[in-house]
């Protein structure tokens, strides 16, 4: 009869190595980031501006060739979550806030860290701006985090359709 003890504890790493190809649209976006630019792409049909565009409008099914939009580095926090549970590979100390930032003029939010504000004061409608790393490259890590601009909160009506 085997003993019903705790038994041996083992650590089993599981690793998946990808060779990630960004594609044309994401490459345009990431090359913009490398120049401290946040580039959106506009749908020629509905006029929506996508950030981190996949090169097509999911609503109209057409290429976002309506033009490149050099977006401001400022926007509204539409929704957020406060992370309290630590996990492997976490780069920030808990608790911290992570949220969706709808840049002014964009129709889809970017995800980012919200810092320079106590996590329990983070709120929907908060106006935030990008804080860039000193050295930027073709990666979203070039944006260190987002901090409050100090402007009055955005009116719910201005971003409710983006939730």
């Amino acid at each position, binding site marked *: 009869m*085997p003993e019903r003890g705790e*038994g041996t504890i083992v650590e089993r790493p599981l690793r998946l*190595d990808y060779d990630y190809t960004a594609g044309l649209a994401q490459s345009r976006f990431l090359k913009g980031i490398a120049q401290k630019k946040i580039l959106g792409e506009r749908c020629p049909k509905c006029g929506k501006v996508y950030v981190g565009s996949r090169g097509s409008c999911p609503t109209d099914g057409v290429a976002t060739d309506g033009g490149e939009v050099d977006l401001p580095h400022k926007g509204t926090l539409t929704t957020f979550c406060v992370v309290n549970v630590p996990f492997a590979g976490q780069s920030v100390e808990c608790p911290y806030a992570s949220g969706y930032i709808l840049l002014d003029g964009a129709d889809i939010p970017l995800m980012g860290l919200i810092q320079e504000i106590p996590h329990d004061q983070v709120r929907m409608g908060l106006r935030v701006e990008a804080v860039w790393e000193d050295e930027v490259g*073709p990666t979203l890590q070039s944006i260190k985090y987002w901090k409050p601009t100090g402007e009055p909160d955005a009116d719910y009506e201005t971003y409710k359709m983006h939730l």
Partner: protein
Amino acid sequence: MSDVLRAPHAIEYTYTRSVGPVIDRFFAGLGEHRFQGIKGSDGKVIVPPTEYDPYTGETLTEFVDVGDVGVVTSWAWVTDPQPGQPLDRPFAWALIKLDGADTSMLHAVDAGDESKMSTGMRVKARWTEDNVPDMSSIACFEAEAG
């Protein structure tokens, strides 16, 4: 430079798990360079052993020693081994039914060349020297000598 960016992207997570009493004993056996199975309700020997009977769900307790030599029941050739796989040269993943076992277990066969592999071939475990009580005690399998 190409218009399209590409970059390596690795996802890695480590599971910490208890192996349970049955695999614990199976591992201990591997550290001593021997395989153990467990007898199921139908009298068949399951290798690697399971804690519960696959048909009745009963707790299984009857360990049985099986050989470190067996027969390949199925296999697939790996031309380009990935990092972390048992061998760094082309090898076969194979289902191996050890002598005395009624089920097959998956392991690598160091055959050198695909032409040396065949279903029904006899293979033997190649043990590592360090006698660690887990799967790492089995380096791989190889064609039975003679």
